[in-house]
């Protein structure tokens, strides 16, 4: 019989805990609207979106940068919003799944995801679509294998991968510029 003693599972307890940090102001553009938030600096961009702005379309699948469910576009580039502090987004332009459609008209990727049945439970879907939007913008994908490789940061436990590839392929084929152009 041993008598381990120690912190409960995570990390090490400090002798004198640091006080919780004070909230900071952060201004950013989200889905075209200028927003100013007061958030503690330890707040991730993901939690700021979900809890402070009620933009729950961006999903939390691991909070570790391992699943891609929280993918959003920051200044047009796809990032994991769980690995980004909200205060790091000061002055940036953030696009979430809620900002992709123009009014009632869905983004072509959103249309294609519905048409190709590129999801089941729908939980990874906003991240998949934002990631696919970033992928199209990057312009590196030519083949289906490219799409598979470049979308592998977005896990889908329902296993909708073949349909995700088909949906992205459908949009790429309809936008020859995106397929042939782009920066290497």
């Amino acid at each position, binding site marked *: 019989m041993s008598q381990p003693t120690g912190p409960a*599972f995570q990390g090490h307890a400090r002798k004198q805990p640091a006080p919780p940090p004070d909230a900071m102001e952060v201004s950013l553009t989200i889905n075209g609207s200028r927003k100013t938030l007061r958030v503690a600096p330890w707040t991730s961009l993901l939690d700021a979106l979900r809890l402070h702005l009620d933009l*729950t*379309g961006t999903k939390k699948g*691991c909070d570790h940068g391992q699943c891609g469910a929280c993918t959003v576009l920051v200044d047009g580039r796809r990032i994991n919003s769980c690995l980004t502090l909200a205060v790091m987004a000061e002055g940036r332009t953030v696009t979430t799944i809620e900002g992709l459609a123009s009014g009632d008209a869905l983004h072509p990727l959103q249309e294609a995801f519905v048409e190709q049945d590129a999801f089941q439970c729908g939980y990874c879907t906003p991240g998949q679509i934002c990631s696919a939007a970033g992928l199209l913008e990057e312009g590196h994908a030519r083949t289906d294998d490219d799409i598979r490789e470049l979308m592998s940061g977005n896990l889908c*436990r329902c296993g909708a*991968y073949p349909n995700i590839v088909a949906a992205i392929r459908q949009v790429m084929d309809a936008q020859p510029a995106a397929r042939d152009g782009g920066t290497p």
Partner: protein
Amino acid sequence: MIAKPTIPDLLDRPGSQIGKPVSRVDGRLKVTGGARYAAEFNTPGLAHGYIVSSAIARGRILAIDTAKALALPGVLQIFTHDNRPSLPWFDRKWKDDDAPKGSPFRPLYDATIHHALQPIALVVAESFELARYAARLIHVTYEADEHRTDLRAAKADAFTPGKDKGGFQPPPKPRGDADTALAEAEVSVDLNFSQAVEHHNPMEMHASTVIYHNDGSLTVHDKTQGPINTQTYVCNVFNLSTDAVRVISPFVGGAFGSGLRPQHQLFMAVLAATTLKRSVRVELTRPQMFSFGHRPETLQRVALGARKDGTLTAVIHEAVQETSQNENYVEVVVNWSGQQYRCDNVRLDYKLARLDTHTPLDQRAPGAATGIPALEIAMDELAAKLGMDPLELRLKNYTDVDPNTGKPFSSKELRACFQQGAERFGWHKRSHAPRSMREGRQLVGWGMATGVWDAMQGQAVASARLGIDGTLTVGSATADIGPGTYTAMTQIAADILGLPIDKVSFQLGDTNLPMAPLQGGSWTVSSVGSAVKAVCDRLRDRLAGLAAGLNDGPLKGLKADELIFADGFLIARADPSWRLSITEVMRANDLLVLEDEARSIPYYKSQMQHALGTHSAIFAEVRVDEDLGTVQVTRVVSAVAAGRIINPKTARSQVLGAVVWGIGMALEEESMTDQRLGRFMNHDFGEYHIPVNADVHDIDVIFVEEHDDIVNPLGAKGVGEIGIVGVPAAIANAIYHATGKRLCDLPITLDKILGA
């Protein structure tokens, strides 16, 4: 006003909607971020809970020092076994609809630690970040006992369980003398198998948001496969009336079995909300998703004997599976081996061994996904020894009756699966010798296997409300964890009443709706779909009666079966120009709405006389890198016989996804226990590998025609599970064909390929 449908109520001819590849009716909500999951119902004043997990696998808590955490401004309360409110003593109060025999785990009940990562405290704070920070300041002192988490060590103490869980059938008694037949067989194989623990890991982590109302009632948003199961558990454990607890879970971010039982975040959130009289959310972390049920590790032996012509003369299948100390989790692992092939000498044995772990939990095709790969890999080995085409061996021993019971199958189009699957795959081009299909340094292998799953049905109730404008709302308290329940039910209702899809909406995930069973086991279309059909049949009958009663109307005196329902009209079969719209019929009868409710009850009598099941044939191609041992599954053809397919688009997606699960089981998924600590060491997505997009290539799904008027009025068997069963075997068999190495320990990782 619950009516039983009259038999026969079979769906002879679908109308315009059943069988159509309709896009998901909730698709727009899911691609725009509008679908809200359990952790996404925000409300003013919401407090956040964070769970502290045990660092040891077995023992007791001597002390929990919460002072530093409690001292932080904004920390509201820390719940532990020391300060919890009174909780029920009787086990039955903690039971849920999926509980096996035993004593369910009770969070925060006492100081005893039963398994690693057991929840031992809940911090509730004004913000999520603060609760997380405070949890790190809690200091726990344990007294650790020896733990046993190694199934191989525990195997010696294995015992034979009884009928310890709903839906479980112990193995049938031996028939013939399998051991003697094996010893005397002209050709035989005898293989040992193992399969690692797997965790469900739906993308949405388990979460519960409990909204506390001023009158003390609760609205619970829970990640669950059954809202009523959640409600019953909350009411029993916290001594609340069902009126005071409403569960609303319209969207569930995958579950695959993990939502069949209420998980401890639900307990924690309700405990905090009722004690603090505040709305509270508790969400597990990804590592904490490894703190509850899982697909149990299983050790198996399959031995087969055959004559030189391939006729099976002996089948022996033995399995030892883990369960917890407190419950007897059981699943049907070995029975399939007595059912799949014709054989006179069969011995099946299933045992459990207790470990210091959380009770295992049904995971996609529980039992079959575990047992069938062992059987089907052994069949492949037997074919290799016989020098026979593995497909021929299966056809040689094909059976149209279930040899375990002697009952005929209600339908079994497995031959068609073999034929169509083989043709699509190009199986006849296979050169049967191992290592004979190399391309450079890539060893190409083709393997096949069969799959089987039950076709089950439970009782369910559905309500319907038809408006004078021809809009129909149907509801039942089922869930949609991803299969497309919203869409399939909408199609069934629209089909029966002849309405366009956009005039019909289906509601689920709400305990205010009529009773539905847990969503699981591929039985939702069968159970809830039959209830939807029943209630729409009643509305149809009533509309027909109302139309027939209109003395100056064109449908006067016509019976329901003399009418067609299409495009919102009641139309006489005899002369399609005799017609009335639903609106006209209701207006003429001074009705604004027509409401009804109906219960569907399985055809117990005819079902008892038959074996009911779905079947599949899977063909897989792998490429194995000879130097690195890496495996790519480059092609899979899955041919499935599952009765009528309500929606071929969403059904195909389910099978695609299940094949992906099969790839994960075959090659990647493994929760590895550090036996010194008694806990899973790879408890996140970085270390627990599920297939990613780059792991998945061409998957082709075939649904073969299968007519069945016994399984349920819809003739639809469900496709949630069948797609995974057998896939790991097809891949393992393809790896054998590619490399000449017979690998029987799942997952087949590259170290096993290089080391064999």
